[in-house]
């Protein structure tokens, strides 16, 4: 069959790329081979537009066991315990079919974590929707949330944290990023590098169907009469089978049977086999007629490109086949030896003993195209924000506007749909700055949080990139955890667009600077380009997922006020930065100006001192100040408790709104006992930390002296209304 221009195009390959394929093969590819190239060389698998930039990120520290490049990142948390984690996007599938898209997103990221020998212990998600008024938003929100819950609840892993945002930039392209965190023994981590010749390559898990054979399969349909039947289909998640696969894999991993293991994610059998062979500098030969199939008459092309879920590829030690097979049989899963490792450094695909495709592994992996795409610096045109002329509004009204807005409303409508408690190690559930998960049977814990700030990143990508890393760092510190490492999901528009590529490059620059300064390395991540439609790209939305360590559990710390008559101290300096603030957005619909700047030195000092105070048990509750500023953060500490705060305005106050709603960075609020006040103030002074003692906790009322006084119950209602009415 002749490979026409149209077929090449439908496979998403550029003409130059096709030429390169011919050169590497020294001949024309057949359709199967073309499909395989297109799968391996697409953006998702090859990182062709991002790779040179990602290389700049810091990926090492004394705690990092495995950085980017494996299924997930691995960090050392002491006593032979390791934490394995990664975040991944499932944006496009979730827009098409929100329930299944989100569900399979969760399933996919879980496999990345348990392939490495870790038992997943927590799930997180970052979800971004279009404007609440957009006709699709409501059903997308419903579908995505129940999909995330549906998968996590069924498989029995708690979904403990996340973020949910609305912004019209996502009207036609929502973001669904899922993060999984697992626990492994440091000396029992499994990798994907193949080793040894003639080893069995084993297929385990669900059967292969015609799921998610993307544009690629449409091309193939043209050559078939049954076009209708072969339409690419949406992937449906099967959390039940994944649970079986998880238990079966972990059971097999107790032994030393596995040489290498890799989940079949994007580009299924193709990428898993090529990656294992490439890492081990080996070849792989597969007998495709042995692949367990769900439908009749599946072609080698379909088998190699199917993205059916809940499948793994394993390379086994000699003689372990029967032992392993028994385990998978116990869990009612398919287990078939479908091939072997070879020394040819080629991917050889046979069907009933006939060779259907033969490609040098290097051509698919190492020789995949890499682009240094053109990019342009963000043009920071002069900003003419004249805040002096804004209509005066009252402090309480502004606060209410923010607390009742979709982005700041209480998220329990969402989090109540997730099982947060299963596994019985959730020390801090959703609702605080970070969730806390205990390491099973130990007296230590990890804290986890995901964060993003698309508006900041859009207005000034370098500052924005820096800011999210810091905000994420701060969230972990606020619950008393020492931040260890991050994973990141980089959601951007079309990389062939100069401005988008500029946003990407500059955001990464910011992320890099912050990670380096805070010694907060990147150990895994995912890039999602081409978010947008009709040349309209989404705002740059890098999402940071952080993991921190609490090495000795005492009482888990959160941001809820604990009792009355305690002092509230504001740590860090308030300048009153209102540009890009939530105050201007919710009250005046102004989204303009520069994001607040982070001073990395202050960030580090303030954070470390907070950790020190927490470590000495001097803090009753802690909260970082982020979007919404001081007053919003204070009300978040009160809402959900019986205690409010009475705040005195500072003596020489310039502007009320700047002080109470400014989004200056690196600030924390802490609640402290009167009796500890002196020693805390001394520690802060001795370390040259700027702080203000701003008020006292009290029963029932939230109050700014001379401005307003409101019942906590009222605030609670205001904050909880939106989702229930939507």
């Amino acid at each position: 069959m002749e490979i026409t221009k149209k077929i090449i195009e439908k496979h998403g390959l550029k003409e130059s790329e096709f030429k390169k394929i011919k050169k590497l093969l020294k001949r024309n590819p057949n359709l199967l081979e073309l499909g395989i190239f297109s799968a391996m060389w697409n953006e998702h698998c090859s990182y062709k537009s991002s790779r040179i930039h990602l290389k700049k990120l810091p990926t090492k520290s004394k705690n990092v066991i495995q950085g980017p490049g494996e299924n997930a990142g691995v960090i050392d948390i002491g006593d032979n315990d390791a934490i394995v984690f990664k975040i991944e996007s499932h944006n496009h599938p979730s827009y098409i079919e929100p329930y299944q898209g989100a569900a399979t997103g969760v399933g996919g990221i879980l496999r990345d974590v348990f392939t490495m020998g870790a038992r997943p212990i927590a799930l997180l998600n970052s979800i971004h929707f279009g404007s609440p008024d957009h006709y699709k938003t409501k059903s997308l929100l419903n579908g995505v949330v129940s999909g995330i819950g549906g998968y996590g609840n069924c498989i029995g892993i708690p979904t403990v944290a996340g973020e949910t945002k609305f912004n019209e930039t996502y009207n036609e392209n929502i973001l669904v990023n899922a993060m999984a965190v697992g626990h492994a023994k440091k000396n029992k981590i499994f990798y994907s590098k193949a080793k040894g010749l003639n080893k069995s390559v084993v297929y385990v898990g669900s059967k292969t169907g015609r799921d998610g054979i993307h544009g690629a399969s449409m091309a193939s349909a043209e050559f078939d009469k049954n076009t209708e039947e072969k339409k690419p289909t949406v992937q449906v998640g099967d959390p039940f089978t994944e649970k079986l696969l998880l238990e079966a894999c972990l059971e097999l991993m107790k032994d030393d049977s596995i040489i290498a293991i890799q989940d079949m994610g994007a580009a299924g059998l193709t990428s898993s086999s090529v990656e294992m062979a490439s890492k081990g500098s080996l070849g792989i030969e597969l007998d495709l007629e042995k692949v367990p199939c769900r439908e009749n008459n599946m072609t080698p092309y379909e088998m190699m490109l199917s993205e059916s879920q809940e499948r793994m590829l394993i390379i086994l030690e000699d003689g372990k086949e029967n032992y392993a097979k028994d385990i998978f049989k116990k869990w009612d899963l398919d287990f078939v030896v479908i091939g072997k490792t070879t020394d040819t450094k080629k991917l050889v695909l046979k069907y009933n003993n006939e060779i259907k495709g033969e490609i040098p592994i290097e051509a698919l992996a190492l020789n995949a195209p890499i682009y240094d795409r053109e990019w342009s610096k963000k043009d920071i045109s002069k900003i003419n924000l004249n805040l002096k002329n804004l209509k005066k509004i009252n402090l309480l009204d502004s606060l209410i506007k923010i607390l009742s807005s979709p982005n700041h409303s209480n998220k329990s409508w969402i989090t109540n749909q997730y099982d947060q408690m299963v596994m019985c190690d959730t020390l801090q559930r959703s609702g605080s700055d970070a969730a806390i998960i205990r390491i099973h049977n130990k007296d230590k814990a990890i804290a986890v949080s995901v964060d993003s700030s698309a508006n900041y990143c859009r207005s000034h990508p370098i500052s924005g990139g820096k800011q999210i890393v810091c905000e994420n760092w701060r969230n972990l510190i606020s619950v008393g955890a020492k931040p260890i490492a991050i994973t990141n999901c980089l959601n951007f528009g079309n990389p062939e667009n100069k401005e988008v590529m500029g946003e990407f490059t500059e955001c990464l620059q910011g992320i890099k600077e912050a990670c380096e300064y805070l010694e907060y390395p990147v150990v895994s991540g995912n890039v999602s380009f081409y978010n947008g439609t009709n040349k309209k790209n989404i705002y740059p939305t890098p999402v940071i997922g952080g993991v921190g360590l609490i090495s000795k559990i005492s009482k888990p710390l959160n941001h809820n006020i604990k009792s009355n008559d305690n002092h509230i101290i504001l740590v860090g300096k308030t300048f009153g930065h209102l540009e890009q603030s939530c105050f201007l957005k919710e009250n005046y619909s102004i989204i303009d100006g520069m994001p607040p700047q982070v001073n990395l030195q202050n960030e580090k000092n303030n954070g470390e001192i907070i950790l020190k105070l927490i470590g000495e048990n001097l803090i009753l509750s802690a909260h970082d100040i982020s979007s919404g500023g001081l007053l919003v953060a204070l009300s978040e500490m009160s809402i959900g408790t019986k205690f409010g705060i009475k705040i005195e305005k500072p003596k020489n106050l310039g502007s009320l709104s700047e002080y109470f709603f400014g989004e200056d960075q690196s600030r924390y609020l802490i609640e402290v006992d009167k009796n500890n006040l002196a020693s805390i103030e001394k520690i802060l002074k001795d370390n040259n930390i700027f702080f203000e003692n701003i008020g006292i906790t009290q029963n029932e009322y939230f109050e700014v002296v001379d401005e307003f006084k409101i019942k906590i119950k009222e605030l609670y209602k205001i904050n909880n209304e939106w989702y229930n009415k939507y």
Partner: protein
Amino acid sequence: MKFSVTVTLKKDVLDPQGKVVENTLDNLGFKNLKSIRQGKFFEIEINENDQEKAKNTVKEMCEKLLVNLIIEDYKINKL
């Protein structure tokens, strides 16, 4: 006027439920079971005497709410 609607998963779409039900029936000893597909069923009654119109209304209900057209097919029958 009364209609029944049956909704089934499109061919080629993974049907985790069907698979488990099939295995269970097999385990229960139903060896002559060839295949089983599961779907949804609606019985809809509407106040409308014109059959053409009524059927169109049911169709609209299906496409707007009852059926997920991305993964499901449906059939309408007059009762």
